[in-house]
């Protein structure tokens, strides 16, 4: 296993330990808690289906963040892009009365477009005016929040103040055969959208010239520019594709897992995407796996709460703690390096004891800085003399 994977696993472990500590502090048994958390997500086929369904939007938002990361961009605008993409899809689904085979692909397409549009603005601001994409994306999040809020309230209001009208069954990603296969779970066609997206993004990143350009912009903007790669074009395209992926998460969430759009809340899946990407080491497959893990935490928490009385927010707390540890992974890496180093040293020591003489020329080179030690000493002495 590579080092990044190991660091991710350690972050997860630390997050779980933190969760256990919180459970202990609040007077619950962590072992019982985790047991029912896992049971809640995997006990039967229906629960497994629900876990996968919960993970679906996370796969897409995680992919979105990871993709932008590879171009050196931090897409913190996933909640807004997801909301706006989902909103566009819902609006289309509620307005047009088409056969399902036509309407659903149209909705998916529109969602991608909506998300891409929402990410286009931070992208072009970054490319043309060098406006930091994090700040502009945060602004775009809240613009999406209010635009969707008032448009839904004005034109698509449902029974409740805070949600849109329900989508007809022909306008959702739900498929009875898939649902029945998993014992009546709300698993839907969205998972295929997500898997397809993972494959396409992995292909783009690893096998195409475009992906290579994107990654080289991420590694070093200036070197990429020097090599004749259009940095600005790649920044805009990367943001748009990332936004489109987040938009897909929107259609999967609002027209798949649910069948209407909620207003007055930022979709938490958006920010969770950051966690998914970090944990997945910014690779498509990594995002898929870590999204499934988070899906398990989210779908099992209700069962855990009912069985043990641990509040369901423990899942969110664990995920947030994992992000913190992933962000501070340098600490973990340092410890790992130390561990590896000390093992190596032991090996070399034992080698030195058992056998050949170690040449000392390597060490000598290290002591020399920019100047030989003697000359720097003498200059110091001179300076001192001058002072006197």
């Amino acid at each position: 296993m590579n080092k990044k994977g190991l660091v991710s696993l350690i972050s997860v472990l630390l997050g779980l330990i933190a969760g256990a500590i919180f459970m202990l502090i609040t007077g619950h048994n962590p072992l019982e808690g985790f047991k029912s958390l896992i049971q809640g997500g995997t006990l039967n086929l229906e629960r497994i289906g629900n876990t996968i369904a919960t993970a679906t939007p996370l796969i897409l938002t995680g992919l979105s963040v990871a993709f932008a990361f590879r171009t050196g961009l931090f897409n913190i605008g996933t909640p807004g892009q997801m909301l706006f993409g989902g909103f566009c899809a819902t609006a289309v689904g509620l307005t047009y009365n088409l056969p399902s085979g036509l309407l659903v692909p149209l909705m998916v397409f529109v969602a991608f477009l909506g998300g891409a549009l929402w990410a286009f603005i931070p992208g072009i601001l970054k490319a043309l005016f060098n406006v930091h994409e994090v700040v502009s994306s945060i602004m775009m999040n809240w613009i999406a929040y209010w635009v969707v809020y008032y448009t839904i309230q004005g034109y698509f209001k449902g029974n409740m103040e805070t949600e849109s009208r329900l989508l007809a069954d022909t306008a959702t990603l739900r498929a009875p055969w898939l649902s029945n296969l998993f014992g009546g779970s709300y698993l839907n066609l969205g998972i295929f959208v997500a898997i397809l997206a993972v494959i396409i993004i992995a292909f783009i990143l690893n096998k195409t010239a475009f992906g290579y350009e994107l990654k080289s912009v991420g590694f070093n903007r200036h070197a990429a520019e020097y090599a004749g790669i259009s940095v600005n074009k790649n920044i805009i395209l990367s943001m748009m594709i990332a936004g489109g992926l987040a938009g897909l998460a929107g259609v999967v969430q609002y027209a798949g897992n649910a069948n209407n759009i909620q207003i007055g809340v930022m979709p938490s899946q958006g920010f969770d995407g950051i966690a998914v990407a970090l944990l997945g080491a910014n690779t498509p497959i990594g995002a898929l796996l870590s999204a499934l893990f988070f899906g398990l935490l989210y779908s099992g928490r209700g069962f855990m709460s009912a069985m043990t009385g641990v509040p369901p927010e423990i899942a969110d707390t664990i995920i947030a703690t994992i992000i913190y540890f992933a962000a501070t992974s340098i600490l973990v890496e340092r410890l790992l390096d130390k561990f590896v180093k000390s093992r190596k040293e032991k090996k070399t020591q034992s080698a030195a004891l058992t056998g050949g003489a170690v040449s000392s020329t390597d060490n000598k080179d290290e002591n020399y800085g920019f100047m030989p030690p003697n000359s720097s000493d003498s200059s110091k002495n001179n300076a001192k003399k001058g002072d006197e």
Partner: protein
Amino acid sequence: MWQIIEQIFPYAIAYTIPLLITALGALYCERSGVVNIGLDGLMIIGSFSSALTIFLLQKAFPGSSWTILVGLFAALVVGALFSLLHAFASINLKANQVISGTAINMIASALTVFLARNITGSGNIRLTNSLGKYNWPLLSDIPLIGPLFFKNSYATTWLVLIILIIFTFILYKTTFGLRLRACGEHPHAADAAGINVARMRYMGVILSGAFAGLGGGIYLVTFAGEFNGGVAGFGFLALAALIFGQWKPFGILAATLFFGFASTISNVSQVLPQLATIPPVILKIFPYVVTLVALVIFSKSSQAPKASGEPFDHGKR
């Protein structure tokens, strides 16, 4: 028209003050060279801890009003302590400050609801009485200005304004302020001049945590009246105000007032027919749009601290 202004003025101020104090803290943080995306989370932490303190104290001492002051103080302290997480990650570990800030936001919103559920059963903590309004003697009788500023004003408003003046003075007129700004502009030069960059940045982050916590507390006792797991995006709005105010104390005062009035007008536009002509959505997205516009306009001549967001590495030039 005057009547409308007189009516919405107190609400606009109540909206402005938590934004102002949070943005002021963030100003110190960014001026010291650390980006703080976690303002929203720090406000949530502050809001939660003051709600909890007031809730428990009011149970023990029903009817007394000093509990609110203790609650605000608790928000200040807990906010400062919580921001240590961000400080440690971004200063000692040189972590990505944006990710660390995002983690702060997520931890705060999850952990507070988790704890609130453990304590009160539901995720909400409702206060039985909120902060009282205060009429200044004499001053409130001044025509025009009196009713606007000195009638029905919260004590916290004046507290925050005093803090603003003191900390503007500290930022521009004291050695500490100069050093702090130096760490945000050119940490290596500051380091070469013998300033402990890490310590300055710690001060900036902790101050930001304390002020954001206080902002969350003020939001609770004047504006919300109930803790329900969030602060309605006030933290992000404060971040917008910081940028729109171009990292200057009186700039952010103007920006937060601007945002406060825009949001208040959109909130009351359904009630007041004179304002109903402007669609509320325009007013709601207004702060964010003008911030985007400001980012573009000032992109060439931005006053942003130059080293903000960059971890300070002693050996790197």
